């Protein structure tokens, strides 16, 4: 009986923590809304020069659309350079990018395979513009994205600005669910920006001051998540990273469970290994909200999610065992009662309903601040209902690999 009570208390504490984190982000977001006005798109006089690096490895089918979207940016042509780096592709990627070899804004580079960070550093060596950024070769930008992001650099304290990332043309149910998830991430990133606590500078279209990146020594391998490593390194040194949710970038999301699983294991593994490298920041108020709350709660979320998932799967297993026992005895499965008396209204379940409701609200806010739409994506109900069954598997796999230090494959 004592064991059951301990588990019950632990479950309630974890749910309280989850709810507290969501409420904290919402309160921060609202406070910032009250304090600031919306940033306008910069005028031509103010726009800095910028180099966008497109590192490619076997992206023959998507790289042309990526480059075309960059060349279609509404930005002074003389202030925008595109550097495409073929990182030792074994397919027809270089043939696909050769069409741009005579374009005045485009530079092509080719090297042996060394990872995304090495491709970025090669381009960094040749960059003389004020700003430098990266766009993954499977992503595309909206025409106004760069002008919006560039405006963020008017404050000399700002060293990086991150965009709002969306799923490009979702087709499968899984991609639609990810679309809802990305809208939630748009809100979270915006809220973290208001707290000065962004610690991931996403690969698709995060822009940096070139001099800052150079002074940091460029990008590192970062356990296959160089964007996370760069973000933590900048936070470690007190650099300010902002976000503009309306600077929209569209990226291809995995179509299958297998693809999604591989991607998310890599992300989670990278998070765990990088946070271990920067563990001096955890619970350290010197690093502001990031050290005091954001990093610790992100870590606990992994353990907490695994525990809650374990409890959920156990409850489902017990319910299925009950149904099978009844079937074995009576020969029929029975129908669930429609009597409202039997609706579960325990504190645990009401709190779960509330966490789901708040998450739904967050997805809606993310949609609104990035696209202006008041409706969430159509995959939102599925995302809320099913994601909690999928996430624990990649969290568990990443945790095991992080503990065993086995590493992860990019592709």
């Amino acid at each position: 009986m004592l064991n059951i009570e301990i588990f019950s208390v632990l479950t309630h504490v974890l749910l309280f923590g989850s709810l507290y984190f969501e409420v904290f982000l919402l309160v921060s977001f609202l406070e910032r809304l009250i304090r600031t006005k919306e940033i306008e798109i910069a005028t031509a006089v103010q726009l800095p020069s910028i180099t966008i690096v497109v590192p490619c490895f076997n992206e023959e089918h998507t790289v042309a659309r990526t480059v075309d979207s960059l060349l279609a940016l509404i930005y002074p042509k003389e202030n925008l350079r595109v550097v495409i780096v073929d990182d030792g592709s074994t397919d027809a990627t270089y043939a696909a990018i050769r069409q741009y070899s005579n374009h005045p804004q485009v530079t092509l580079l080719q090297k042996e395979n060394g990872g995304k960070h090495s491709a970025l550093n090669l381009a960094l060596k040749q960059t003389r513009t004020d700003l430098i950024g990266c766009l993954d070769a499977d992503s595309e930008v909206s025409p106004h994205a760069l002008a919006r992001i560039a405006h963020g650099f008017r404050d000399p304290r700002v060293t990086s600005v991150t965009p709002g990332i969306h799923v490009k043309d979702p087709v499968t149910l899984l991609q639609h669910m990810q679309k809802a998830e990305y809208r939630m991430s748009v809100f979270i990133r915006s809220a973290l920006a208001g707290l000065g606590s962004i610690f991931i500078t996403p690969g698709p279209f995060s822009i940096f001051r070139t001099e800052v990146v150079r002074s940091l020594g460029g990008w590192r391998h970062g356990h296959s998540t160089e964007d996370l490593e760069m973000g933590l390194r900048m936070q470690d040194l007190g650099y300010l990273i902002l976000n503009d949710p309306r600077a929209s970038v569209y990226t291809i999301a995995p179509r299958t469970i297998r693809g999604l699983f591989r991607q998310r294991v890599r992300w989670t593994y990278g998070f765990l290994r990088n946070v271990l490298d920067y563990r001096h920041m955890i619970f350290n108020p010197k690093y502001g909200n990031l050290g005091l709350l954001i990093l610790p709660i992100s870590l606990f979320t992994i353990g907490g999610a695994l525990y809650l998932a374990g409890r959920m799967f156990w409850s489902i297993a017990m319910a299925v065992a009950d149904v099978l026992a009844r079937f074995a005895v009576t020969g029929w499965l029975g129908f669930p009662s429609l009597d409202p008396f039997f609706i579960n209204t325990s504190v645990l379940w009401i709190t779960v309903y509330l966490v789901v409701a708040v998450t739904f609200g967050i997805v809606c806010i993310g949609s609104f601040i990035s696209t202006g739409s008041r409706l969430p994506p159509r995959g939102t109900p599925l995302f809320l209902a099913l994601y909690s069954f999928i996430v624990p598997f990649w969290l568990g796999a990443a945790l095991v690999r992080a503990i065993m230090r086995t590493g992860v494959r990019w592709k």
Partner: protein
Amino acid sequence: MSAEHLRSTAPSPRSIRWSTYVIAFVITAAIFGTAFYVSNYFSAKRVAEIRATQENISIDILSLETQFDLLAEHSCEDIAENSVLSRELRPLAARLSYIEGQASFNRDELIQLKRYYSLLQIKDLLLMKRVAEKCSLEPIVILYFYSNEGDCEDCERQGYALTALYEKYPQVRIYSFDYHLDLAALDTLISINKVARDLPALVIDDEVHYGYQAVEDIEKIIPGLESMRVETATTTAQED
């Protein structure tokens, strides 16, 4: 917007607004408190619903006993063997079983409800015996003794089997008792029927059967069940 305005509104990576932490905690605690309040409200409502049902059953039993006394010299046709009690008692059993499985319900309150329910069953059993004796009826009665204290592996299966039996033969009167319930009347019933602590136990025709009994096993123990099913079908056909 001037650069000076941006500098004053852009966040600092090192700053902490403690008020945000406190406000968020207060709001979260308020939400959690509301969840507790709502959960307790619905729990109390369920208990009140069960109590009300039990009160109604108690009044019905008293009414039937009084009716029986009033009609002592009259025809048995005026008294129905299958009173409304069977219809009311079974849904009550399902509700009690449900709240017994919910950790959020007060255990003392639950025990009280179970004790009252067991008393109502015993009252119904006694009244039914009086009616049967007076009117020369032969109702089929099963007393089922179970335990929820982990000492009865087959009790869950037995419960499903009895539910299936009742659905097949609605005329059968099945009375379920928690063997370990602290109730003097129940202890007396156990003593009278000489039920040992070997559960599940079924008492049929004054004979105790220990261990799991499937529907087919009970049909063999009670040969009269099949004829009851035929009678029910015939009655149904006549009503049509």
